[in-house]
């Protein structure tokens, strides 16, 4: 039987404010335990939370980019539950009247649509976007030493989180992966979050169910007869990497199908992804947790984000809208138009904001030196997507850690365009630049790699090569065209690749004709 997975994702991203959501504690990562805490975020009696304006700004910026409707009025709520990572015994979150609702994110798919079986573009609905505070961190082991108690660090408590809830419109683990990738890319372009899954600044939970493919009539009849048999969802937690997201969803989908196929029932529950064992497991301790008894947070007054007769507040949202940065999809389109990049190249260089910045920086540096945009734009894209990213990816380095800076890459391409070095030599120079951080010009001078363009000198070398390779010359004369390649190779070897290839070809052919 065929089943279609139905997935909704709940993403939490940590907003990159300097201070926490409701107090002035720092949000800095990696400080000693419990050094960024205060009476407010540890829930001491008599304290009052005060909302961080920047966090609201970031949240609204994101909501607008996700095509959501921002609320006219938004309120905070207490979500009540007991857990040692939550000092107040409630989390300040939003329930009724979130900041924004009802948007969508258009996901771009992988180039290899054949494998993914997914349409190239798809809109995934965004149900809501709201602000809440993070909880603390629990430690169950010190190093490899398992503790028989737990330790609590409240540094993270109260750090602003943006919760983004998708509609259940994702239909495969791959699509979930693209959704999260695209969302992450947008959040980075919006400059609201670092989205570092390793540091926990981007987290993702999923709701998963499976339904029989509508085309399967037989099964439909079965479902109609047995009512609630299909479509019960489970909540999957702890998918803390892109790999985990895909694996956990695949596992859970298969698990549910197996349960249904063997005549069982899906139990609505929370399940935890165990990456080591590659399975999801029921979290029995969460049985009671779903009754959070939300109620409006009495310590915080409502947010009025836009009303006709209050210009000041309306300006707040309008201002954010006006200053919305360029988003990845827009930037990609612009790169295709402005730099005449292929869809593929534009997709690769805009996949990360910092990479797109790197690309544009390099273009600008070259333009300064008087090169035509159309000529260099594509060359730069090639060098970045093949050589530079190849190196960086192999070393798991980010573009900002590239030892070759945009002006240096521009310098290298300038030397190629001017004919100072050949494309082949350029690769050697690039290697050297990457390893030593030296500038292209300096490497070329030091190593004497300047391209040989003196026709007389090339002719002399060619004459020598022809004398040394009489057999090959005879073969060529006998009609074996491929022999020419061997002769060119010999010339290049003699000049350590410095000879201008066009000139070598030209002179070589002339000499062969006349000898």
């Amino acid at each position, binding site marked *: 039987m065929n089943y279609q997975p139905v997935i909704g994702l709940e993403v939490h991203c940590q907003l990159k404010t300097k201070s926490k959501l409701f107090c*002035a504690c720092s949000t800095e990562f990696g400080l000693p335990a419990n050094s960024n*805490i205060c009476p407010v975020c540890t829930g001491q009696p008599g304290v009052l939370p005060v909302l961080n304006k920047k966090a609201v700004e970031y949240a609204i910026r994101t909501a607008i980019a996700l095509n959501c409707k921002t609320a006219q009025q938004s309120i905070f709520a207490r979500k009540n539950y007991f857990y040692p990572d939550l000092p107040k015994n409630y989390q300040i979150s939003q329930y009724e009247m979130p900041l924004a609702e009802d948007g969508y994110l258009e996901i771009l798919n992988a180039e290899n649509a054949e494998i993914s079986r997914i349409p190239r573009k798809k809109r995934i609905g965004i149900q809501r976007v709201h602000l809440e505070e993070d909880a603390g961190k629990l430690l169950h082991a010190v190093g490899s030493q398992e503790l028989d108690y737990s*330790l609590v660090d409240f540094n993270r408590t109260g750090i602003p989180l943006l919760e983004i809830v998708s509609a259940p419109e994702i239909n495969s683990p791959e699509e979930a992966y693209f959704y999260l990738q695209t969302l992450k890319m947008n959040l980075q372009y919006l400059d609201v979050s670092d989205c570092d899954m390793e540091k926990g600044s981007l987290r993702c939970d999923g709701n998963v169910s499976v339904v029989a493919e509508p085309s399967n009539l037989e099964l439909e009849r079965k479902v109609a007869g047995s009512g609630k048999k299909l479509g019960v969802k489970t909540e999957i937690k702890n998918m803390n990497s892109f790999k985990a997201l895909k694996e956990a969803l695949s596992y859970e989908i298969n698990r549910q199908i197996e349960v249904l196929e063997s005549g069982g029932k899906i139990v609505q529950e929370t399940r935890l992804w165990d990456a080591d064992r590659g399975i999801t497991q029921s979290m029995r301790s969460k049985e009671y947790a779903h009754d959070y008894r939300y109620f409006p947070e009495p310590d*915080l007054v409502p947010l009025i984000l836009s009303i006709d007769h209050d210009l000041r507040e309306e300006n707040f949202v309008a201002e954010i809208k006006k200053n919305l940065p360029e988003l990845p999809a827009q930037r990609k389109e612009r790169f295709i138009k402005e730099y005449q990049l292929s869809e593929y190249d534009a997709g690769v260089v805009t996949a990360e904001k910092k990479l797109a910045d790197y690309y544009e920086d390099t273009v600008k540096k070259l333009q300064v030196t008087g090169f035509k945009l159309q000529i260099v734009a594509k060359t730069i894209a090639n060098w970045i997507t093949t050589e530079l990213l190849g190196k960086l990816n192999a070393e798991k380095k980010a573009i900002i850690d590239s030892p070759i800076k945009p002006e240096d890459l521009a310098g290298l391409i300038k030397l190629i365009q001017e004919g100072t070095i050949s494309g082949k030599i350029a690769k050697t120079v690039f290697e050297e630049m990457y390893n030593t951080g030296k500038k292209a010009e300096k490497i070329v001078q030091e190593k004497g790699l300047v391209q040989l363009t003196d026709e007389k000198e090339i002719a002399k070398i060619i004459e020598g090569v022809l004398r040394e390779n009489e057999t090959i010359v005879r073969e060529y004369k006998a009609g074996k065209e491929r022999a020419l390649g061997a002769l060119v190779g010999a010339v290049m070897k003699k000049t350590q690749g410095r000879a201008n290839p066009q000139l070598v070809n030209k002179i070589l052919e002339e000499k062969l004709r006349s000898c």
Partner: protein
Amino acid sequence: MKITKKDVEYVAKLARLALTEEEKEKFCSQLNQILLYMEKLNELETKDVPPTSHVLALKNVWREDEVKPFTHTKEILKNAPEKEGNYFKVKKVIE
């Protein structure tokens, strides 16, 4: 709607409260009285009254994103029934 003893026990469990049988009876009747009062309020026509989320007529109270470190973090740690180094120490909780 009427609050039963079972409801009281459920809420008590959520709030981690251990109640005696007498307390359960007492809260059951008190909670029912509160609900009765709410029913009284329901007699009012509130069709055109927007729900109140806060009793003060304030809105958009917020602060700029500035860090002001709290310097007495050790005092907070002092309140902990148990601690270890800079950490609060609790009974083992693990999923």
